[in-house]
């Protein structure tokens, strides 16, 4: 193939690297009002009084808005397809504040300095309540985070707000208890995964203005323009037809920008004042007043027979969703959705709750529950293998789901593709399993050990994600590809163009890609849930095929032969006999400008009832310092089955980046609060993300499969790559020093204390 499977540079790459002004704040008008937010210093309180009079008198202050000035429709910031599974539990501003950082007042001024000065002049009196800070004590706590009557959900998600339960989940196949009773070996452990910050380099930002029709335009650094439009319509109580959301270039997302940021605040200012406004969250706000990965407690019970055949797998999950229920029920569900199908146990069950606490909300984060679930399940599998005296790779090879097997999620659809077994075998070879497993002493105080984990994710959300693509043949013979998928650095504008170019047998340069603008783009939920390559990709392929047929038919008509007697060959339609031909340019010109009177437009709306899983086998080599307990990653091998690799260099970097985030989660990233619920890790000084020196070597390989339902055989890659590092590194640390760290991150303190504990025994 000419384009698919080629490492083509990102079509916007040159502009990005050479510093062209293409991001939200580069585009915002210079005269935009600067919007700042006064935030709550308390984790849980009621505003008794708020006095903005002094602040309003300050020169340069345009408006100050409080809970008295906002529409009273509760909404969710979660960017999800309608009907959103997240509860409508927040107002733009409210007289109750539910975490340190919750918004109290909106300040709009001519510049940042004036806005900040005004903020200091606002006087607020609070009645402070006892906050719910420990998520394990949230259920039945005397404080109820959301007592309000008008909180609502679109459908039943198991909400019991008087108990602080946002969502409840249960899924079961087979007789778990019956199977467990007959197992020879059982592992029963409790695992904790921490809140993790997305830390994308571009913080949240939105620029809003009214256009010539008086419509609200929001240029937003978002992964979900159509969801933001719906969110703004509900929160501001204006029709969606009066709103346009435009996504420019985005400085990273990782799921963060699947949740709304400052859009509602800037939009409200623009509606109230009629003036352009921009809001830019600083790094501290981004760390402490947006969302993080949901922290979880996951109890795993897993049973097998003596030969290592897994019979039963049970998960009990408690998820901390913080002060608002963004993505609460769905992240909870995905803990099981992407772990239970992986092993062919007869009986599998997940039960769980997501609970409200008075901390920053949880949200969507690359992996979306699967990352948390994978740490727990894979750690348990590694322990099971040890109990059985079997090689952990062999246990997996024995039990993993294979192509043709039935996935529990889709009883009527056999698994279309998987090379996970080859991924495991190749990974073992590349990491040097035979020689290095489990552990070697490399220096008097240093040991090196190996660990492993496998994982799956999905490719879009089955029966929900629906993407539309349009491609038209323009008057001068080039194409415009219209999509609503949101390139946030992932390269989807490029890979979707590759697919279209492949089908249309044209060049990358001949295709103008436009995304995303809710006034122009066909609907797409946005780029999340690993959906873009697979779902939007299929829409693009089908739209391109549709256009190709139309070009052929139109060309044949001009050649006065039937379509069956003609073929499209790159830039010409010619008769099969080869006696006549017409160029694409002529077809375009005749159709659009001339006597044809029909501009050709290919179109497709695509969604699927299945979500084919990509797979990764991850192998870690870790060096542990016996004197300090510090674990350092030496080598990481990830072998990936994402179906057909559409663009190898982009897929490789995507994998390396996901692994790096996983390494951070495994070893040091940790969102922490003090006893009053104030976030302690609200800058890069306190919250460490991996720097260039921390990563060791990460090696990525692909074991391609061919997914029959995917575009050119492709599946997803965006999220699955984040899941293996934590369990693989934890496994390696155990093999190094015998300490099982079951609560992430695996800090030197935990390892060292564990070693001390072992020494005492």
């Amino acid at each position, binding site marked *: 193939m000419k384009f698919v499977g080629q490492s083509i540079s990102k079509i916007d790459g040159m502009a990005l690297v050479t*510093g*062209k002004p293409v991001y939200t704040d580069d585009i915002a008008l210079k005269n935009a009002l600067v919007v700042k937010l006064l935030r709550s210093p308390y984790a849980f309180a009621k505003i008794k009084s708020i006095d903005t009079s002094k602040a309003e008198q300050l020169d340069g202050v345009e408006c100050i808005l409080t809970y008295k000035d906002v529409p009273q429709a509760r909404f969710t910031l979660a960017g999800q397809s309608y009907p959103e599974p997240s509860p409508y539990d927040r107002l733009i501003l409210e007289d109750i504040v539910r975490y340190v950082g919750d918004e109290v007042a909106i300040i709009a001024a001519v510049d940042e300095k004036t806005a900040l000065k005004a903020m200091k002049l606002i006087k607020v009196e609070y009645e402070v309540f006892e906050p719910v800070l420990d998520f394990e004590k949230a259920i039945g706590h005397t404080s109820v985070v959301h007592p309000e009557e008008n909180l609502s959900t679109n459908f039943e998600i198991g909400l019991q707000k008087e108990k602080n339960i946002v969502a409840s989940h249960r899924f079961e196949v087979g007789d778990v208890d019956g199977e467990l009773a007959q197992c020879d070996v059982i592992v029963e452990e409790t695992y904790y995964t921490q809140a993790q910050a997305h830390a994308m380099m571009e913080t949240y930002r939105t620029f809003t203005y009214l256009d010539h029709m008086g419509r609200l335009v929001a240029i937003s650094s978002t992964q979900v323009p159509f969801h933001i439009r719906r969110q703004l319509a509900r929160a501001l109580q204006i029709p969606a037809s009066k709103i346009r959301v435009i996504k420019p270039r985005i*400085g990273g997302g990782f799921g963060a920008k699947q949740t709304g940021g400052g859009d509602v605040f800037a939009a409200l200012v623009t509606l109230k004042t009629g003036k352009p406004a921009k809001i830019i969250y600083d790094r501290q706000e981004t760390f402490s007043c947006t969302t993080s990965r949901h922290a979880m407690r996951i109890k795993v019970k897993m049973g097998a027979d003596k030969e290592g055949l897994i019979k039963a797998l049970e998960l009990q999950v408690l998820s901390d969703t913080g002060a608002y229920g963004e993505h609460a029920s769905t992240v909870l569900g995905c803990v099981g959705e992407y772990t239970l199908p992986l092993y062919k146990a007869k009986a599998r069950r997940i039960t769980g709750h997501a609970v409200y606490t008075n901390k920053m909300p949880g949200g969507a984060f690359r992996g979306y529950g699967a990352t948390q679930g994978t740490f727990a399940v894979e750690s348990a599998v590694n322990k099971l293998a040890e109990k059985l005296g079997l090689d952990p790779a062999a246990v997996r090879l024995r039990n993993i789901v294979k192509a043709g097997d039935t996935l529990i999620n889709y009883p009527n659809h056999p698994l279309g593709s998987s090379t996970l077994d080859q991924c495991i075998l190749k990974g073992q070879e590349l990491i040097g399993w035979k020689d290095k497993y489990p552990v070697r002493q490399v220096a008097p105080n240093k040991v090196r050990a190996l660990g492993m984990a496998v994982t799956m994710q999905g490719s879009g959300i089955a029966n929900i994600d629906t993407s539309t693509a349009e491609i038209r043949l323009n008057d001068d013979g080039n194409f415009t590809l219209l999509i609503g998928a949101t390139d946030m650095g992932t390269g989807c504008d490029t890979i979707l163009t590759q697919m279209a170019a492949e089908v249309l047998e044209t060049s990358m340069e001949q295709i103008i890609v436009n995304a995303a603008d809710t006034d122009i783009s066909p609907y797409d939920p946005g780029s999340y849930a690993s959906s873009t390559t697979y779902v939007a990709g299929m829409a693009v392929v089908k739209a391109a095929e549709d256009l190709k047929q139309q070009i052929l038919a139109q060309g044949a008509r001009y050649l006065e032969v039937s379509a069956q007697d003609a073929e499209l060959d790159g830039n010409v339609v010619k008769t099969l006999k080869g006696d006549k031909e017409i160029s694409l340019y002529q077809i375009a010109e005749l159709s659009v400008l001339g006597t044809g009177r029909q501009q050709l437009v290919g179109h497709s709306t695509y969604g699927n009832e299945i979500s084919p899983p990509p797979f990764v086998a991850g192998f870690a080599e870790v060096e542990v310092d016996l004197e300090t307990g510090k674990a350092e990653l030496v080598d990481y091998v990830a072998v990936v089955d994402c179906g057909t690799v559409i663009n190898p260099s982009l897929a*490789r*970097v995507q994998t390396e980046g996901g692994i790096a985030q996983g390494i951070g989660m495994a070893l040091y990233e940790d969102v922490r609060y003090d006893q009053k619920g104030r976030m302690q890790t609200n*800058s890069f000084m306190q919250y460490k993300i*991996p*720097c*260039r020196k921390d990563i060791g070597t990460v090696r990525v390989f692909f074991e391609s499969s061919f997914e029959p339902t995917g575009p050119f055989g492709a599946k997803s890659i965006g999220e699955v790559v984040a899941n293996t590092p934590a369990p693989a590194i934890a496994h390696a640390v155990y093999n190094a020093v015998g300490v099982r760290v079951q609560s992430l991150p695996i800090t030197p303190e935990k390892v060292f204390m564990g070693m001390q504990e072992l020494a005492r025994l």
Partner: protein
Amino acid sequence: MLINLSINGKDVRIDVAKDEFLADTLRAQGFLSVKKACDTSCCGLCTIWIDGKPTLSCSVLSIRADGKKLTTIEGLQQEAAEFAEVLTAEGAEQCGFCSPGFTMTVLAMKSELKNPSDDEIVHYLTGNLCRCTGYMGQLRAVKKYLEVLA
């Protein structure tokens, strides 16, 4: 306060506040490649050259830059494009938000270090954070870029 700057070879005299930082001054002057991402002087996105040395412009008071020679990536388009060719071929720019600052450090390293080892490269560039790529692709690109130059 009025200060004199040379920005990308052009002399300008501009009025800045006493507590204004250079990154904000430069953005206000239209040099929008200069990004801010941390507020704590640790991400490297605002990297420019002051008198040829890579510097965090978010942490330099504009008045301290009076009389200095500043270079942003807008003034090094040819060199930046050469590096961008290699970086984008690896796919290692991803979201690109950190790329201009990163590129400014790479270009400074190129003139400062002769035949650097992998460790020296990593050490020199370590102040430039990136959350997308995991750094491996950037290292591949930098090495290729140095090879091409050699």
